[in-house]
C-alpha cells in the first residue's frame, strides 16, 4: 500500500478523487506489486471471482422464472428448461457453475496448503477464506434443494436432521429449521431466501479477503517475503491480468465442455424425479464436492460425534496457521511436508470416493482409516513436522540464487545440526 500519493492528472479527476478516492483505489489495483514468479496455481483467485459473478448473474436470471413452492418448483425448473429463451443454457451454467466453483476453490485451498499461504502474516486472509468456503457449502446445499427433486428433498431431510443430534434442543431446532414437522414448503421458501442472500455475503467477504491480501501482498512459490515494489515484483496490470485471463479462458473451455456436452454428468439422476416424501431413494448422496465430509460424517457410528467430526474437519482448517509450526512456508523447501501433503490430497480424494459408496463393509473401513488420517495430519503430523523436519536452504530473493547470507538458510542449517 505504497501508492497513497497518487494524484489523478485531470482537474475533474482530482476534484472527484479528493471526495471519493476511487481513482486511488483503481491505481492501487493496477499498480499492485505482485511477485513475478507466481505460477498457474495462483490464477484460481481470479477464476473464483469469475465463478462467483457467473453464479450471481445466472442465479438472478433463474430467480426471475423460478417459483419457490413445493407444488410448483419442479415444474418451474422444467419451464425454464423448455420455454424460457436460453433457459436451459442459464440453468446448466448455474448448476455446473457450482461444481466448477468448488473445483476451483479446492485447487485454491490446496495451493495455499502446498505453498504455506495461510502462515503469518496471512492468517486473516486464510480464515476469511474458510468462512467463504463454509458459506459456499451452505449456498450450494440449499441451491441443490431448490429444483425439488428426490435428491433435493432427501438431501435436505438428511442434512437438516443432523441438527437433531444436538442434545436436548436438537429436535426443536430441526422443527424450527423446517418450519414444520417435515421438509416441506416452508423449508423450501426459506432455503430459497437464504440461497439468494448468501452469495452477497460471500461477495462482501471476498472484498475483505482481497483487501486483507493487499496488505502483506501475495505469497509466492518460493514462500519468502519480498520487497515491494522491487526486481521481484511486476505490476498487477498488465502482467497478472493477462496471465489470469489466459488461465480463466482455459478454465472456461472445461466449463463449457460440461455445460454443452455433459450438463447432467455431475448431478444425480434422481433429481429429475419430483420430490416424493413417501419414496426414499436407494442411496442418498450429496453433490460430489461435499462427499469427503459426508464420508467423515458416516464413518463415526454415533450420530452426534459424527456431526462433530464433520464440523471439526472443516473448522480445524481455521486454526491451521497455528497447527503448522514450521517457519518455512513453501513445501518446495520442506521435503517431508511435501510428501505428507500429497498423502493428504490422496486421503481427501479417497474420502470423496467412499463418500459416494454405501457406508458398509470395506468402504466403511476405508472411510474410517481415511478420516483418522485426516485428523492425524492436522493434529499430529503438522505440529511435529515443524520441529523435526530438515528443511532445504531457502533463497534470499526470487531473482537471486541461494546465497550464504540468507537468514532463512542459517535457520535451516541450525535445524540440520540439531537433528544430526
Amino acid at each position: 500500500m505504497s501508492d497513497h500519493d497518487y494524484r489523478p492528472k485531470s482537474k475533474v479527476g482530482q476534484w472527484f478523487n479528493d471526495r471519493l478516492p476511487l481513482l486511488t483505489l483503481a491505481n492501487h489495483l493496477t499498480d499492485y506489486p505482485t511477485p513475478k514468479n507466481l505460477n498457474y496455481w495462483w490464477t484460481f483467485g481470479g477464476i473464483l471471482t469469475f465463478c462467483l459473478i457467473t453464479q450471481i448473474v445466472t442465479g438472478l436470471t433463474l430467480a426471475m422464472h423460478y417459483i419457490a413452492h413445493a407444488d410448483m418448483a419442479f415444474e418451474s425448473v422444467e419451464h425454464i428448461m423448455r420455454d424460457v429463451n436460453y433457459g436451459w443454457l442459464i440453468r446448466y451454467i448455474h448448476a455446473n457453475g457450482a461444481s466448477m466453483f468448488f473445483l476451483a476453490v479446492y485447487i485454491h485451498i490446496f495451493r495455499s496448503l502446498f505453498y504455506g499461504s495461510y502462515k503469518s502474516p496471512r492468517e486473516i486472509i486464510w480464515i476469511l477464506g474458510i468462512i467463504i468456503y463454509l458459506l459456499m457449502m451452505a449456498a450450494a446445499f440449499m441451491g441443490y434443494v431448490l429444483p425439488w427433486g428426490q435428491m433435493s428433498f432427501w438431501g435436505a431431510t438428511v442434512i437438516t436432521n443432523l441438527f437433531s443430534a444436538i442434545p436436548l434442543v436438537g429436535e426443536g431446532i430441526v422443527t424450527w429449521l423446517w418450519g414444520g414437522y417435515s421438509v416441506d414448503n416452508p423449508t423450501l421458501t426459506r432455503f430459497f431466501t437464504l440461497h439468494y442472500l448468501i452469495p452477497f455475503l460471500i461477495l462482501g467477504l471476498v472484498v475483505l479477503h482481497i483487501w486483507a491480501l493487499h496488505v502483506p501482498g501475495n505469497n509466492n512459490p518460493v514462500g519468502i517475503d519480498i520487497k515491494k515494489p522491487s526486481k521481484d515484483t511486476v505490476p498487477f496490470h498488465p502482467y497478472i491480468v493477462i496471465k489470469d485471463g489466459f488461465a480463466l479462458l482455459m478454465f472456461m473451455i472445461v466449463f463449457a465442455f460440461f455445460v454443452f456436452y455433459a450438463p447432467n454428468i455431475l448431478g444425480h439422476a434422481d433429481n429429475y424425479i419430483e420430490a416424493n416424501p413417501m419414496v426414499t431413494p436407494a442411496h442418498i448422496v450429496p453433490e460430489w464436492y461435499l462427499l469427503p465430509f459426508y464420508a467423515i460424517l458416516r464413518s463415526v457410528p454415533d450420530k452426534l460425534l459424527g456431526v462433530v467430526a464433520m464440523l471439526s474437519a472443516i473448522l480445524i482448517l481455521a486454526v491451521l496457521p497455528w497447527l503448522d509450526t514450521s517457519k518455512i512456508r513453501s513445501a518446495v523447501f520442506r521435503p517431508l511436508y511435501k510428501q505428507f501433503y500429497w498423502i493428504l490430497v490422496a486421503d481427501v480424494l479417497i474420502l470423496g470416493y467412499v463418500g459416494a459408496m454405501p457406508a458398509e463393509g470395506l468402504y466403511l473401513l476405508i472411510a474410517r482409516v481415511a478420516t483418522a488420517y485426516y485428523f492425524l495430519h492436522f493434529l499430529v503430523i503438522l505440529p511435529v513436522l515443524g520441529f523435526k523436519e530438515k528443511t532445504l536452504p531457502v533463497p534470499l530473493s526470487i531473482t537471486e540464487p541461494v546465497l550464504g547470507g540468507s537468514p532463512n538458510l542459517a535457520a535451516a542449517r541450525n535445524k540440520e545440526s540439531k537433528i544430526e
Partner: protein
Amino acid sequence: MKSLFKLLSIIIIIIASNSYSFAAEKVEYLKTDWSFKGLFGKFDRASLQRGYQVYTEVCASCHSMKYLSYRNLAEPGGPEFSEVQAKAIAASFEVTDGPNSDGEMFTRPGKLSDKFVMPYDNVKAAQAANGGAYPPDMSVLVKARGGGVDYIYSLLQGYEEAPSNVSLDDGVYYNKYMYGNKIRMAAPLSDGLVEYGDGTNATLEQMSKDVTTFLMWSAEPHLEARHQMGFKAIVYLIILTVLVYFSMKKIWSRVKSEV
C-alpha cells in the same frame, strides 16, 4: 503448465467416475448408435416421428408427458412435424377446458398450445388402474434414470422368462435390466405392434430405439441447439485462448521470468 493439465484431468475423471459408480454394479446395457451423441449430435427426425407414434399408440395409455405441449412437436430440433400435422395431432385429443360463462367445464379438440393430455386424472387414479404402481411421467424420464437412454433402450428389450429361483407375484414381470429385476409393467413392445407410416419394419429393437430417441428429445428438447452453440463457444474460446497466450508471451517477454 503440464502438471496443471494433468491434475485437472485427473480430478475431472474422478468426479465423473464418481457419479457413474452406481451403474457399474449392474448389467451391461445394450448398445446402439445414438445419432444425438457426440460433438455434432442431432436427432434423427424420422426416428423421432416414429418414436412419437410408438409413444402415443403404446405408452400414452398409461404414461403421461405433462411438461410437453403439442406445439413442441412442430418446433425446430424436435420431430419437426409440419404445423398442419401438429395441429391435426392436437385436434385428435379431447381437452377439458373451462369453466365457460355458465360455470361448466367442457371438452374441445386440442390446440397447439395445450399440454399433452394426461391418461389419468391424478396419481391415485393411475395407481388404481395399474395394480398400485404409478406409471412415471415420461417427460424427463431418460434424465431421471442412471443409465439414461441405454437403460431405457435395454429395459424395453430386457423382458425374459424369470429364472427358476425367482418367484414373481401376479402382475410383476422379470426384466434383466430393471433394478432388482422385478417390474410392474408388462412388456410394452413386441414385433409388429405398431405399423410405421414410413414403411420401416417395426421390430422390437427398432421401436425401442425410436421411442427412446423420442424420450431423449422430450427430456432435452434443446439438445441440438446446445450442441451447435457448444461447438461454436468452444472453438471461439480456443481461438481467444491462443491469442491471449501469445499476447501474454509478448507482455511477459519484458520481464526476465518464466510464464
